[in-house]
């Protein structure tokens, strides 16, 4: 599903929102089911899994804050603002799940910073905000790709891969909104 297939951006956005809502509901259910078996399957590498989850959690919390900066910038027009807020909502869901999982494994979840440093002086137009968000999402895809093979617990690897898929969709939509090829390559790295 792509904006390219629709006559108008609004029609594309409506279709995207409807579809992604369905997809994410399915993922969330799968993740929750995975969580229930975590305690039983966790073994000697629990501490390293907690470490991986907490790094991901810290990045998700930063993404929530970054989208807030974008939303409050006054630079996003209405359809794009709604999309940004939806993506922020996904990051909140990721963060919430990661924090609960860390707790379930006996760790202390990473907390949001009281202040984040963002390059706000470079945000002068909607495209700047979209490019900034696209860069964060692209980095997130790589970060999850680099984390998935490290998990001792395969259920956690599966959950992280599910989040990776969501971040990749964000990245593609943001690229498309910028007029760039939404999926430039067959593989991500």
């Amino acid at each position, binding site marked *: 599903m792509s904006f390219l297939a629709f006559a108008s951006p609004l029609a594309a956005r409506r279709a995207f929102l409807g579809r992604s809502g369905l997809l994410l509901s399915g993922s969330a259910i799968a993740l929750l089911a995975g969580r229930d078996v975590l305690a039983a399957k966790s073994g000697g590498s629990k501490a390293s899994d907690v470490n991986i989850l*907490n*790094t991901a959690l810290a990045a998700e919390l930063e993404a929530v804050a970054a989208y807030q900066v974008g939303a409050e910038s006054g630079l996003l027009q209405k359809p794009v603002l709604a999309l940004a807020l939806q993506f922020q909502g996904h990051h909140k869901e990721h963060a919430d799940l990661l924090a609960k999982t860390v707790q379930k494994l006996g760790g202390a979840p990473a907390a949001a910073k009281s202040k*984040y440093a963002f*390059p706000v002086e470079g945000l002068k137009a909607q495209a700047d905000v979209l490019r900034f968000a696209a860069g964060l999402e692209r*980095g997130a895809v790589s970060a999850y790709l680099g*984390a998935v093979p490290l998990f001792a617990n395969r259920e956690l690897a599966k959950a992280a891969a599910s989040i990776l898929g969501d971040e990749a969709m964000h990245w593609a939509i943001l690229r498309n909104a910028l007029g760039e090829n939404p999926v430039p390559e067959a593989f991500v790295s």
Partner: protein
Amino acid sequence: MSFEGALLAAALAAGDPQAGEQLYARCQACHALAYDRVGPRHCGLLGRRAGAVPGFEYSHAMKRSKLVWNEQTLDRFLADPLKTVPGTTMTYAGVADAKERADLIAYLASATCDKR
């Protein structure tokens, strides 16, 4: 210098900073050149002692690593962060390709703090 060391030095010297800049997009989930994020800022990295950016909250493992970042230590760390510094919060499988590591290191060596 050993034969292996000479080969590594030659490979690292051939790093392409422009290719490294493209690869650096992978790092931008957690890092920026000029400011601290989930990970510490990268400008001024070469020659810096690991765990030494003022005000950044490092893992105990990184603070105790006694590493000084140069082409060789960065190459080792980027290849396998968790093996090089067990307990680091850079929970990333690593950059397996030696040419990509060399390009990244060349970019990091050229990066200045005025780049955002």
